[in-house]
């Protein structure tokens, strides 16, 4: 996905934000809002998450002057959102609920025989690379639908780790989860996507 990946691009953007350039804010809003929403949605419902991300951007106008660049801009923004979202949760005396107890997806678990071997082995054979597969609009739409159906906790973990390419430590920090619980969230989400692609390849239907 598109991000300000080059150090120099990011430095130029940060300069622009510091100088209060509206055009640079618009650019940054488009680049970083999806990731910020993924963080906020881990903790909050959709409406509160949007409100939190909106407020964060206004905060950034002043806060960017104090940004020291110890982390990248993306990580810094994600931490601001996480802190605000956690405060919001605390004020409303609520907690994030997620199931970390079983790493195997129930649908996949049913595909094993009692002796622990595959009863219904994977039928999927990838012959194209991921980029070519994504050119299939129907598969891309189907992936969108299934990503949207994942529990928020799994989707946020997956988005931050895979799409926004955060390191595990950063995701754990931002989402306030232990390393082992993050592993469960990621694995559960990946299995769902695997099952979806398998069905799509077999039946042509989402």
């Amino acid at each position, binding site marked *: *996905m598109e991000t300000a990946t080059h150090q120099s691009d990011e430095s130029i953007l940060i300069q622009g934000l510091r100088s*209060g350039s*509206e055009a640079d*804010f*618009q650019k940054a*809003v*488009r680049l970083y*809002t*999806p990731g910020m*929403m993924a963080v906020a949605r881990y903790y909050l419902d959709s409406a509160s998450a*949007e409100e939190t*991300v*909106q407020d964060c*951007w*206004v905060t950034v*106008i002043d806060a960017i002057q104090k940004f020291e660049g110890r982390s990248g801009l993306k990580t810094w923004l994600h931490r601001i959102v996480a802190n605000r979202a956690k405060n919001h949760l605390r004020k409303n005396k609520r907690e994030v609920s997620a199931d970390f107890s079983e*790493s*195997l997806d129930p649908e*996949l*678990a049913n595909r*094993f025989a009692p*002796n*622990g*071997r*595959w009863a219904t*082995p*994977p039928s*999927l*054979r*990838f012959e194209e*690379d*991921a*980029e070519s*597969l*994504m050119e299939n609009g129907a598969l*891309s739409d189907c*992936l*969108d639908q299934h*990503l949207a159906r994942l529990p928020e906790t799994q989707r946020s973990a*997956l*988005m931050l780790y*895979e*799409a926004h*390419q955060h390191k*595990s430590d950063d995701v754990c920090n931002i989402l306030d989860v232990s390393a082992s619980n993050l*592993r469960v969230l*990621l*694995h559960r989400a*990946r*299995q769902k*996507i*695997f099952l979806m*692609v*398998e069905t799509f390849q077999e039946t042509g239907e989402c």
Partner: protein
Amino acid sequence: MLMCRDLARIASDYIDNELGTAQKLSVKMHLMMCRDCRSFIGNLRASTDLIQAHSSYKPDPELVRRIDEQVAQALNAKKN
């Protein structure tokens, strides 16, 4: 001995190189003998690549419009 179901539980840890040496070795031994699990690991890896290649992580246009508006207002208020 590691069974297919056990391997399926830790498949992401294997893909992300998060397993300890002993566990990694037992996964590799199992994969040498089990075609179905090789296929599963390959598929899970491909699914992960798909998620990374998926380009439609676009922000909601309505949300972006609201943020632009609020930021512009706040920037103007600061200038004045």
